[in-house]
């Protein structure tokens, strides 16, 4: 396996996370640096993505690197039945770094094992999306001034949402307190509650998005229609988890609303102009976090 690869947030220690966040802050202050000069980066998106691909490609361009790749697997040999192993073996002989999104769980770990250049996981199925986690942490740190002892409310699809699962693992280093707000069908899986127990992390489960007066971070996720077996249930719950501007009235002044995006109807557009809405800046932070990840993976900093 290629040692530099970044596949899973569980691979990163607290020190490593803090180091990446510090580098990201440097890039925010000074984003255009020619650290990737004469380097070719392959962005292999076997599954569509807007933000992740564009922010990775922006990060590469701001670092002076060049990009090859595809954003639709149908235009590649994988549509002819080429195995991932063969695609990776070939691309890793062309490029200095591979950034990959793939619909199958574990595809990134496997790619990192067969590639001779580092692989950055830009999302493998329902499993991991670690660069999202780092940009979430960067956003939390930037808005709160710290990652320690925060009250974090996770809202929406807590069962399938990989971003909330990775966030729990990453935040476990910083003594958080969690509130899980989800409908019965989409509750936080036992596995993650046991993880919190094993780390001595306090959490509570709530089924309605009501009292958010103690939250430092309100992390919203999309409740997806296709997750429900019973569409009647979906119709019942879909609006219970919609954040409206009025609901932010009696909240803490430092509260910030985060969302990995795309948002559908879980945050009303009337929230967008509230100073507590942070999701678009959060997406912008993705470029700096990804610049930091790329440089770290390649050992450039």
């Amino acid at each position, binding site marked *: 396996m290629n040692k530099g690869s970044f596949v*899973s947030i*569980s691979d990163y220690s607290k020190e490593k996370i803090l180091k990446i966040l510090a580098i990201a802050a440097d890039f925010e202050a000074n984003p255009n640096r020619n650290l990737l000069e004469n380097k070719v980066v392959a962005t292999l998106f076997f599954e569509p993505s807007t933000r992740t691909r564009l922010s990775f490609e922006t990060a590469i361009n701001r670092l002076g690197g060049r990009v090859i790749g595809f954003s639709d697997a149908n235009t590649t040999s994988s549509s002819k039945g080429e*195995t*991932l*192993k063969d695609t990776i073996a070939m691309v890793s002989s062309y490029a200095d770094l591979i950034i990959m999104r*793939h*619909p*199958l*769980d*574990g*595809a990134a*770990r*496997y790619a990192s094992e067969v590639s001779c250049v580092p692989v950055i996981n830009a999302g*493998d*199925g*329902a*499993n*991991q999306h670690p660069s999202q986690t780092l940009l979430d942490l960067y956003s939390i740190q930037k808005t709160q001034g710290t990652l320690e002892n925060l009250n974090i409310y996770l809202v929406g699809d807590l069962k399938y949402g990989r971003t909330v699962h990775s966030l729990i693992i990453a935040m476990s280093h910083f003594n958080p307190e969690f509130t899980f707000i989800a409908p019965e069908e989409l509750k936080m899986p036992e*596995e993650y509650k046991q993880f919190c127990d094993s780390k001595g992390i306090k959490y509570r489960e709530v089924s309605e998005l009501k009292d958010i007066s103690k939250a430092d971070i309100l992390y919203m996720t999309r409740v997806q229609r296709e997750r429900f077996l019973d569409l009647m249930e979906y119709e019942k719950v879909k609006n219970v988890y919609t954040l409206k501007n009025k609901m932010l009235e009696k909240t803490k002044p430092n509260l910030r609303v985060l969302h990995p995006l795309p948002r559908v109807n879980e945050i009303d557009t009337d929230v967008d102009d509230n100073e507590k809405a942070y999701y678009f800046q959060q997406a912008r932070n993705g470029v700096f976090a990804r610049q930091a990840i790329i440089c770290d993976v390649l050992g450039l900093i």
Partner: protein
Amino acid sequence: MFDHKKGLVVVALENGTVIDHIPPDKLFKVVSILNLDTLDSQLTIGNNLKSSKLGTKGIIKITNKFFEPNVINKIALVAPNAKLNIIKNFQVVEKRNIVLPDEIHDIIQCGNPKCITNNEPVPTLFFVVDKDDVKVKCNYCERMIHQEDIKMK
């Protein structure tokens, strides 16, 4: 355990390995995990034999075959209480318990249909995260599987 007193239903070994106390319904899984079907050595398999501990049990005797611990320990997933007897010159020279290894290579099938290992020709790898409660974690999709849900390839 190898029971001398009650007499053996199957012939005694001069040199080799006896795997005893295998649950009868797991006997052929043990055969398959250890690839005994492709072995040239003389092999005796007994199943549904009387056992004071298990009621009935399976037993496998393999002539002139000695397993490395990392090979034999693979059967811990199906027969964690099996006992291993190493026979030299008709004597039991060593008794061993089966110990679950830290890593399990290419035996378990991942239970997650969307795992890369179920969609491409990838050898599976599982880490044993809990030896008592038998919980393993897929190296690829990172899903945890409990003993009762473990399926062999």
